[in-house]
């Protein structure tokens, strides 16, 4: 199991470690700075922290010694916007929303998903980045819409462990897009997703879907789970087709999903009431789990706060480690919990953190 947890918050990257006495809070890195994303690269042990400094833009830092020292590396940057281009999206980095390592056989390769919708590729551990122009110049990209932010963004990057040239990205709001050729070309990959917020005749328009988070089972990469704006969707064919899970505990609305690393039928969610009321159902925060591919769900609250509670769990704030037993959960109310038994019981690690945007074991 992973003995270290990185917590990206609005006021820094906070480190927790598990020792003989249990989990304890350790150092706070980048104190005072908003951390939008954190990545632990299992290939070389490097840590990456994406900052959103507000006044001074978005930055990326890397540590090669477990967080003892950090160095700033390049942040993704958009190319010059052609004169007269009527693209309404700014060609300017607004947020680093997702980070993913390339394949095991691609040392140093990283992917970054950003607002306002650009996917970036680095071949040198973040020393330089280039915009994946094939996706940026896809005509349908200009129809993407903001979801939660003013601009659209890529929050999920899935790299197939069997063949890292096979990629899938999740976009709020622009559906899912799949590449079979290392990002050289892309196809919409949201068939079967349903957008309840669109006019009825456009409900199944793939480019209008708002998957909040998309994750892939490492041992069964054809299985993908998506927590969508108005439901939960499951794909068994690498994202080509999606089926809707219509009942899932107290609600099908939420942002986060985690999938078991070896069992594709097991996934966890952190539901909330609905899009216009982003609080736990009946004020009671729960984690739901399916172990049969979405046919049934269990709902767990042991160790989570009693009603009335207001915790909301963002996209990247529910994670599972490589064992499949240890999970971490954190909220915009600054609460952090860990489970050692597959999500059935939760232990609070802190109740006074800044709002949490992202978690990473490692």
């Amino acid at each position: 199991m992973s003995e270290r947890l990185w917590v990206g918050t609005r006021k820094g990257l906070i480190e927790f470690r598990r020792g003989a006495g249990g989990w304890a809070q350790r150092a706070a890195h980048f104190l005072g700075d908003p951390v939008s994303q954190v990545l632990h690269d299992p290939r070389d042990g490097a840590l990456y922290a994406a900052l959103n400094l507000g006044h001074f833009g978005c930055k990326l830092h890397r540590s090669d010694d477990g967080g003892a020292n950090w160095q700033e590396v390049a942040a993704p940057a958009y190319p010059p916007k052609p004169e007269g281009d009527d693209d309404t999206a700014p060609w300017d980095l607004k947020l680093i929303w997702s980070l993913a390592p390339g394949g095991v056989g691609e040392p140093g390769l990283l992917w970054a998903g950003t607002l306002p919708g650009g996917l970036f590729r680095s071949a040198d551990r973040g020393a330089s980045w280039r915009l994946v122009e094939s996706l940026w110049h896809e005509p349908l990209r200009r129809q993407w819409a903001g979801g939660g932010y003013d601009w659209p963004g890529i929050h999920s990057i899935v790299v197939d462990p069997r063949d890292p040239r096979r990629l899938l990205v999740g976009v709020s709001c622009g559906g899912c897009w799949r590449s079979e050729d290392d990002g050289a070309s892309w196809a919409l990959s949201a068939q079967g997703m349903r957008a309840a917020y669109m006019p009825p005749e456009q409900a199944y328009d793939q480019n209008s879907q708002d998957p909040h988070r998309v994750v892939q089972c490492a041992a069964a990469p054809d299985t993908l789970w998506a927590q969508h704006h108005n439901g939960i969707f499951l794909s068994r064919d690498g994202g080509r087709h999606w089926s809707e899970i219509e009942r899932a505990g107290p609600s099908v609305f939420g942002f986060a999903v985690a999938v078991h690393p070896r069992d594709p039928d097991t996934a966890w969610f952190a539901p909330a009431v609905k899009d216009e009321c982003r609080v736990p159902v009946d004020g009671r925060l729960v984690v739901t789990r399916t172990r049969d591919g979405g046919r049934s769900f269990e709902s767990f609250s042991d160790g989570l706060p009693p009603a009335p509670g207001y915790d909301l769990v963002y996209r990247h704030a529910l994670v599972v480690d490589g064992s499949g037993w240890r999970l971490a959960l954190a909220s915009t109310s600054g609460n952090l919990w860990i489970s050692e038994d597959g999500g059935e019981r939760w232990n609070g690690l802190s109740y006074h953190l800044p709002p949490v945007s992202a978690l990473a074991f490692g």
Partner: protein
Amino acid sequence: MVTVTFTSHLQRHVSVPRHELAQAATLREALAQVFAAHPQARGYVLDDQGGLRTHVAVFIDGRRACDRSGLGDALQPDSQVHVLQALTGG
């Protein structure tokens, strides 16, 4: 001599000392000289398209710079340029 100074808030993230420039006719020219010596500072002050970041303010001899995208504000031989964080948010 044109002088360019940067807010102490920026120094927390990236080191960029006060510069004295022999010649710079515009803000663009002055900043280009500074960033040639301190390339990492560029992305903290300018956005990806080369304009001033939304929440960065530049004052030239007490006047706020106007040309935020082209940085074409004129400098005098002894202009004092201050790069500050705007108080509009961020």
